[in-house]
């Protein structure tokens, strides 16, 4: 990996710049994109570089996603910015009854290349309606792919794959991680295929299976655990649909123990699906039940002590890892 370090935001903008330069049919639409290059500055440089291809919309989520669908069906490759992932609720029909089903319902007549970019996650004291992690709803929706990158390089490599993919892709990027820096290859051809997990730390005692913001919790927890002589293997799933079950299996066949970590609330979260598959496909390799770490089952509260309490922490991961490791 290159040693140039840039932020997740910069990685996103760089990838979009590369792709948009190569393909005229790509455009970005959403609310408040041009004035500040996206409300998080995530599209820095793009409004100037691609005038007319970054489109400000009215506040009309149903129609924003609908524009993505309709233009994708007629030759464009839209990137839809949903402003906050929480507002997928305002366009669920367009996402799940239209985008996800159109190709299938119509017998494969058409392709629907659309990326829905959703800034998600908590920690900004933004409270219940601006802090959710909702990827699990889409994992349960046949017809869409689901990508949740963590480090800047993953953002660059995966958004390129998502854009080049001919199917609807839900792309969730954590708001609190935009400024986080990491090494990112400058190579225009650098790409990470959908469905490839990454073993980001090798370990023999327990597998920490994670994605998005959970990766940073696991990376830190792994260092702490090492001090107690527990070598954790950190697997960043990166894409939930398609899911790289082979990498998960290889890791568990080595560690016999697994903890799944994500920021979505635990009940019905992706950890449920993954734990169910692991116990089913790797039953004889498990020396302990698969652990799950996630947000407690309440909406995200506003006040710092409350929000900090409900969100998963490094300590939670360590505790869960020890629980399975010492079993």
């Amino acid at each position, binding site marked *: 990996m290159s040693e140039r370090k840039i932020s997740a935001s910069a990685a996103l903008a760089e990838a979009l710049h590369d792709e948009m330069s190569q393909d005229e049919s790509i*455009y970005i*639409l959403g609310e408040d994109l041009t004035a500040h290059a996206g409300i998080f500055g995530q599209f820095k440089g793009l409004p100037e570089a691609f005038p007319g291809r970054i*489109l400000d*919309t*009215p506040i*009309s989520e*149903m*129609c924003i*996603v*609908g*524009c*993505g*669908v*309709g*233009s*994708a*069906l*007629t*030759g*464009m490759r*839209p990137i839809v910015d949903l402003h906050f992932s929480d507002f997928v609720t305002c366009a669920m*029909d*367009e996402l799940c*009854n*239209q985008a996800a089903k*159109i*190709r*299938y*319902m*119509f*017998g*494969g*007549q*058409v*392709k*629907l*290349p659309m990326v829905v970019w959703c800034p998600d996650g908590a920690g900004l004291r933004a409270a219940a309606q601006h802090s959710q992690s909702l990827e699990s709803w889409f994992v349960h929706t*046949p*017809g869409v*792919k689901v990508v949740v990158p963590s480090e800047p390089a993953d953002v660059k490599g995966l958004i390129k794959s998502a854009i080049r*993919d*001919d*199917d609807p892709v839900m792309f969730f990027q954590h708001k609190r991680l935009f400024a986080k820096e990491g090494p990112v290859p400058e190579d225009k051809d650098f790409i990470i295929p*959908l*469905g490839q997990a990454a073993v980001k730390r090798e370990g023999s005692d327990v597998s920490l299976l994670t994605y998005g913001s959970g990766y940073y919790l696991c990376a830190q927890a792994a260092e702490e655990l090492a001090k107690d002589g527990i070598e954790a293997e950190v697997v960043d799933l990166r894409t939930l649909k*398609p899911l790289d079950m082979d990498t998960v299996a290889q890791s568990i066949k080595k560690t016999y123990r697994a903890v799944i970590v994500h920021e979505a609330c635990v009940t019905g979260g992706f950890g449920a699906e993954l734990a169910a598959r692991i116990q089913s496909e790797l039953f004889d390799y498990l020396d302990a039940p698969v652990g799950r770490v996630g947000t407690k089952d309440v909406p995200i509260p506003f006040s710092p002590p409350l929000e900090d309490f409900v969100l998963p922490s490094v300590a939670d991961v360590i505790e869960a890892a020890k629980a399975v490791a010492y079993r």
Partner: protein
Amino acid sequence: MPEDSNLLLSMYKTMVKVRQFESMAGEYFAAGDIPGFIHLSIGQEGSSVGICSALRDDDYVATTHRGHGHMIAKGADLNKMVAELFGKATGYCKGKGGSMHIADFSIGILGANGVVAGGLPIITGAGLSIKYRKTDQVAVVFFGDGASNRGPVHEAMNMCAIWNLPVLFVVENNQWASTTPQTYSCSVGDLCTRAAGYGIPGVAVDGNDVLAVREAALEAVARARAGEGPTFIENKTYRIRGHFEGDPQKYRKEAEVKAWQDEKDPINRYTKLLTQKKLLNKTKIQTIWDEVKAELDAALDFAKSSPFPKPEDALNDLFSNPY
């Protein structure tokens, strides 16, 4: 008014085609040959044929659960349509869609929709795509009086207006939304009056006068191709059949339906007009109905003799890039 007699006659034939297709569908549904549920557009042929007569092959149409007429008027293949209704592998969607989910992207039909008003956000995207690609296509969305009260209608009209998109909003006000009368569900009698709230030209048309509908469509299409933006057309018409085949219809009186048949029927009215114009007479009419019947019978044979899809085929067509 268009004076090309071939065109006038072909419009007539298309109306007959829609009518016969719908009657056939009703029969075969009753006989149990068509699974699921179907919604027929008998009595609304003036709207489907009038609007689509103003369109080119490369123009886009998004239709509804009551979309057979729009499909046929836009030029859909009867074989594939009947086969799809029958759930056969040779249907438009290989049996995956059925009546409520037919599409033909090769002639710009972006699909029927099981979600009321579901076509409006999609057509906005098609309009935007036309603008990006700098073509002179137009995009048409059909929806009902009931659908007109859903939120997406508002968002789509505003968006198409501010971006001046080449879109036709065609509301087929057939007086009823399932069991609910338009007079109850809509806060205005003339839905076209809502267009003013978006700076969009809105016009109410006698939807059972196919030529009046065509006129309105031609104007709107010209405006759209000229880059002058969207138009809202309200075709006042009536749903003769139940909401779906098998609908008990306790909500309306036989007499109300009767009042819209016979002399108000769009095909009867058009027949009378073309007869006055000496373009039609008893024998010509018979020939046309027979020709259409023959075409439809062929389509039925095709559908009946076609195989059902293989069960495992249910797992295909989900993704363009499968994993």
